[in-house]
């Protein structure tokens, strides 16, 4: 790409060509290194203040036109292409001199975001057909207003500049107004909900002792069966083992009760569940070969009967 600056304006600060004092803006990736885009026009001129993400020029790639946006806030100091010229991806387009110090950069970025609020608010409130025009004029106005106050001597005048400040002020107030009611609403339900949660949580975790104080309606009537309820699956298996072998039901039932009374928490429940839980294949094998599972010694987790235990039992029975 050629380095020839545009002939329209003299550069305010002439820097040596290869080094960039400011931020270099390049032509974005065009998809293929062979593709060439044409510069349509500059939406910003040399000396214009530019906000971050503000369009500075338009490129045409075939039928498609798109904008190149600034990556930094500052002042447009140099351009390297004239309208109608062809550019390729990665070519230098322009140079932006960043705003003088960090605080100004930050403030301009903040400003850019609040400016979005402003324009979108206008959209929402007015909602007429002219909203596009409002949007663009606000955008220009806000940005130039910003830089007019902060950085640079005025460049090519943009008429709406003075109007922008009140609008921005208006725009900044609605977000605050939005925040306040939320803050007011939140603390009230929180103070109400929190004690409720505490009341609910305690009986769940602690089991017996809060049960006495926590839910007086249900528990005084049945204080003793309550712990027996917790391992619900267990009675079912017990019932099944009743069917299979009534004698065995009693010894199974008796060791279970001390477990539930001593270990209220989850670990105890797991152990109980697994030792009484027969997997589908274990049940199927037992049924198929007429094995009484109470005679099989489980070697799995928590004394669970594994498939190999049943098979070993069947094979052992076949041998003897």
């Amino acid at each position, binding site marked *: 790409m050629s380095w020839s600056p545009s002939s329209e304006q003299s550069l305010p600060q002439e820097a040596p060509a290869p080094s960039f004092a400011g931020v270099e803006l390049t032509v974005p*990736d065009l*998809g*293929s290194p062979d593709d060439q885009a044409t510069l349509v026009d500059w939406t910003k001129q040399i000396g214009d203040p530019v906000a971050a993400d503000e369009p500075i020029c338009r490129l045409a790639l075939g039928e498609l036109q798109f904008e190149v946006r600034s990556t930094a806030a500052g002042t447009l100091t140099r351009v390297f292409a004239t309208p109608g010229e062809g550019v390729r991806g990665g070519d230098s387009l322009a140079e932006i001199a960043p705003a003088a110090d960090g605080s100004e950069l930050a403030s301009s970025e903040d400003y850019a975001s609040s400016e979005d609020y402003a324009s979108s608010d206008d959209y929402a409130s007015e909602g007429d057909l002219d909203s596009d025009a409002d949007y663009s004029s606000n955008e220009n106005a806000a940005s130039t207003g910003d830089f007019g106050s902060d950085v640079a001597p005025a460049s090519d005048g943009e008429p709406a500049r003075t109007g922008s400040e009140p609008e921005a002020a208006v725009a900044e107030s609605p977000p605050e107004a939005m925040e306040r009611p939320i803050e007011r609403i939140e603390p009230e339900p929180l103070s109400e909900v929190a004690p409720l949660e505490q009341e609910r949580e305690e009986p769940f975790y602690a089991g017996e002792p809060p049960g006495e104080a926590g839910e007086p309606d249900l528990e005084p009537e049945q204080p003793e069966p309550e712990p027996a309820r917790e391992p619900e699956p267990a009675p079912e298996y017990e019932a099944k083992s009743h069917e299979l072998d009534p004698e065995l039901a009693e010894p199974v039932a008796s060791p279970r009760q001390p477990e539930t009374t001593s270990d209220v928490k989850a670990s105890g429940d797991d152990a109980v569940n697994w030792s009484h839980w027969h997997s*589908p*294949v274990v049940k*199927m094998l037992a049924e198929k070969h007429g094995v009484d599972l109470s005679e099989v010694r489980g070697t799995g*987790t928590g004394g669970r009967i*594994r*498939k190999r235990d049943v098979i070993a039992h069947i094979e052992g029975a076949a041998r003897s």
Partner: protein
Amino acid sequence: MRPKYRGVIPWITYVDALTEALRVEMRRDPTVLCLAGASSSGVQRPTDELVSEFGPSRVREHDGGPSILAAASAAASEGMRPVCELELGALGDADAGALAAAVSSGALVLRLVCGSAAGGVSARGWETLLPEIPELKVVSPATAADAKGLLISAIRHPDPVCFVESSDLYSSVVDGVPEGEHVVPLGEARLVRQGTEIVVLAHGAAAVAAERAAKQMPGEVGVIDLRSLRPLDRDAIVASAKETGKVLIVEQPGTATGLAASLVELIYEELPQYLDAPVKDLGITVTEAGSNGQWTQSVTEACSELVAF
């Protein structure tokens, strides 16, 4: 006519096997194109060596996923057979539409590169990016031989095929690969090891980790490398799950969305009465997968836990 099968190349890396497959197919069929992204990660890529033989018109470099997909759908609808290389880490939600359009434009192969070098893995997984259409086939090889064989059959397949490869395996997997036109049919799983106690279902890099873990418990842990994720080899999965009764699904990071669900569904649908333990799904986090030893270790732990259950 070239001979279909000559012998075995004894030592070849995963990435060289992919190059070999592409070379075989590009020599055979002039409509086969390679579309790759610009090299970003610095790892060797299968298409690197092909440019000198076939030139930049058949081995094209593009700048990003959308541009590759657009070119691929155009080429596929013109009757060409594009083989695209897409880095999964670079694909986002916005690309799902382009991906769906490319997949529905005709026969093409999408090589989805995952792994730590390819921009990491997205937390949501690539399966959500793939459109749920029955024509789409998905394969994920774990060995160099399968990488070659599956890529060749993916290119020859009349439907769109997603070829999921892990760049972590590129240079770490080395094995013997049949010379010439080695074809591995889609839809067949590979029985890696036989085991009596549990079977591990895995694919891609996870299958490699599962194989390592299984070697530490010989005879007990069986491993099935699924290879083909759509369609699944239902017979192999059902047979092994029926034999052992305990199933562990190991997934490489980024795949935790759809595959395990469909495997669990398949197993509980086909053989609920044969299960000796609930099907366990081991999702490996990205940090664990970063170091291969750690990954193998967590698979080993899960295996021994399940064997003891």
